[in-house]
């Protein structure tokens, strides 16, 4: 039985025991049908041309974890931001960990999706938002819709500036061989509210794990969402991350993606504009080596006038690593005065590293400003020599130039603790200690 058949069979087995509402049951059965029909994507599809899934779909993943392993704070502490006060929604092998978490229902809801799915008071919100912006035709997303029962649920009412950032962390312990996790996050930010969220998936062992996460974010009128994805998993871990963002008038959604670790990472980041005067920002730093693969597929759908989108992705590839960047910008005929900016700059640190970068612009309006650019290069040898003549050894000099290259992506990080953590991770990844933060 291949993975696809196994997943479909497992779905059948779980439906008899579930407590889904009628609507939810319908959603899930439609989703599994979509997945069954489409199967996993393959290299013949344009969207997956440079991102082979063969190895992943040949692994015999377990969908339902059988064993539970308790983790202690010491096991996981280093993956949680502590130097800033935060809400925390933490899962271990797909199961909520109340002892690691800090949730709230005071004036807003920062809690578990399973609670929201099962409690009557959340029914309306769930009906309105669950699977409302996700691409139901995408096979990984459909798979997640069929299985996804747990994750973070964040609902911020109107005119509320959430003071503490929210950390969403999914740990896998490795007690279950080849675990496949399907977390589902739902974030609803009502008008004029602001929230900051940090998401992380972290394996604690050298057992293979595949995470297929779907996050839906709704930013209402004038709302601001500042979202950080820290992808620094172990080399046995793989991640397919699909994030769908619905934006209303005057809203600003900002997503930073830091991809430093993991065997395979595919990011699908989609912004859908539902009104005018919207801002969408996506920034990323990718820093990989060995045989790692990181793929960023972004989509901004400009459907109304006077909106802006800014994309800036920097990639540094060493060893035999592979990078993919595909930035799709659609500007509908109605979306006049759109200002769309896209930039993807890459450095190849070795002869065997590869980057495939492609801007994909589909513009149907005539009064727009769309600019895009991509570069692929090496570290400047003259700059390296310059630094060395100042007493800075080659390794440190390379690190300093790498920092300089990635710097303007970090400049827009608004949580100092996140910035400090990213600085540390970059320094660690480059094997240096520099006496300053950018």
């Amino acid at each position: 039985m291949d993975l696809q058949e196994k997943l479909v069979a497992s779905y059948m087995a779980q439906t008899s025991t579930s407590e889904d509402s009628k609507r939810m049951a319908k959603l899930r059965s439609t989703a599994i049908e979509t997945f069954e029909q489409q199967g996993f994507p393959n290299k013949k599809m344009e969207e997956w041309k440079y991102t082979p899934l063969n190895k992943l779909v040949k692994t015999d993943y377990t969908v339902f974890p059988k064993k539970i392993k308790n983790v202690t704070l010491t096991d996981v502490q280093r993956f949680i931001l502590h130097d800033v006060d935060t809400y925390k929604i933490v899962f271990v092998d797909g199961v909520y960990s109340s002892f690691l978490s800090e949730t709230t229902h005071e004036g807003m809801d920062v809690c578990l999706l399973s609670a929201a799915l099962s409690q009557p008071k959340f029914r309306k919100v769930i009906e309105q938002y669950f699977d409302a912006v996700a691409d139901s035709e995408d096979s990984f997303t459909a798979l997640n819709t069929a299985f996804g029962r747990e994750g973070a649920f964040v609902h911020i009412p109107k005119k509320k500036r959430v003071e503490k950032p929210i950390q969403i962390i999914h740990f896998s312990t490795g007690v279950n061989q080849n675990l496949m996790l399907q977390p589902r996050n739902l974030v609803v930010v009502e008008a004029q509210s602001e929230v900051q969220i940090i998401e992380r998936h972290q394996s604690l062992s050298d057992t293979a794990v595949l995470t297929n996460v779907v996050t839906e974010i709704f930013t209402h009128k004038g709302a601001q969402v500042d979202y950080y994805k820290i992808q620094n998993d172990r080399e046995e871990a793989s991640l397919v991350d699909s994030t769908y963002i619905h934006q209303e008038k005057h809203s600003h959604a900002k997503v930073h993606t830091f991809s430093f670790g993991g065997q395979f990472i595919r990011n699908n980041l989609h912004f859908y504009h539902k009104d005018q005067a919207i801002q969408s920002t996506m920034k990323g730093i990718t820093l990989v080596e060995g045989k790692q693969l990181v793929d960023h597929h972004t989509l901004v759908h400009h459907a109304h006038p006077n909106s802006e989108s800014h994309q800036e992705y920097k990639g540094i590839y060493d060893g035999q690593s592979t990078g993919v960047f595909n930035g799709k910008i659609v500007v509908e005929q109605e979306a006049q005065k759109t200002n769309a900016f896209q930039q993807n700059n890459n450095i190849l640190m070795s002869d065997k590293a590869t980057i495939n970068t492609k801007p994909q612009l589909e513009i149907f309006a005539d009064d727009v400003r769309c600019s895009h650019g991509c570069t692929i290069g090496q570290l400047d040898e003259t700059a390296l020599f310059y630094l060395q003549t100042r007493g800075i050894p080659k390794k440190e000099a390379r690190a300093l130039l790498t920092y300089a290259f990635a710097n303007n992506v970090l400049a827009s990080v608004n949580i100092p603790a996140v910035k400090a953590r990213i600085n540390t991770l970059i320094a660690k990844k480059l094997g240096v200690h520099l006496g300053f933060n950018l």
Partner: protein
Amino acid sequence: MLSIDNLHAQVEGKGILNGINLDIKPGEVHAIMGPNGSGKSTLSTVIAGHEDYEVTKGSLLYQGVDISDLSADERAHLGIFLSFQYPVEIPGVTVTNFIKTAINETRKGQGLEEMPANVMLKKIKEKAKLLSIDTQFLSRSLNEGFSGGEKKRNEIFQMAMLEPKLAILDETDSGLDIDAMRVVANGVNTLRNDENAIIVITHYQRLLDYIVPDFVHVLHEGKIVKSGGKELAIELEEKGYDWIKQAI
């Protein structure tokens, strides 16, 4: 301090230095002049240790030790400094952070502890003042958007901070107006003492009015073809390089 004997060097298989002999003692200032393409910048690059430049013959001794196999940073740790003709721009790294990193990496290379923050700060202030650099300048990205004069002043500021034993100033006067040149030259003169040596590489004589050399050497086709005192520079200025070419 620096003893160069029959030095031959090549880059990408092309011979650029064809037997240089040069002896520099502590406290001396040597000027190296010559037409474009004579090998002036190559000589400075070879002394500083660029790995693309290969020494094929002859010897390069610094304080009695053969340094031809040392990397550029190892040579910097021994006290060799190169002021670039075209300093490199590094966006995102401030002048202050850069100089702190350079100093502490150098100290590490010398087996010393990091410089305490307050000592560093005091030194930065003192040396910035010497080169009429205001503190705002120090928090700008290194060389990014700097004028020609600012870049060169920044090079000499770094020299002042690192206190090298042998400083090579490669075309420090290029792109400078007369006021900027005075500031830079004044900075260099303040740093002169009996223990360090300076090599001034220049195309024109005018910088040598401000940084007065003890010896002047003329480079042509990768060889020193004439040496003399400071009056040689004046003679060159009057007669031009063709005079030297004909004399050979």
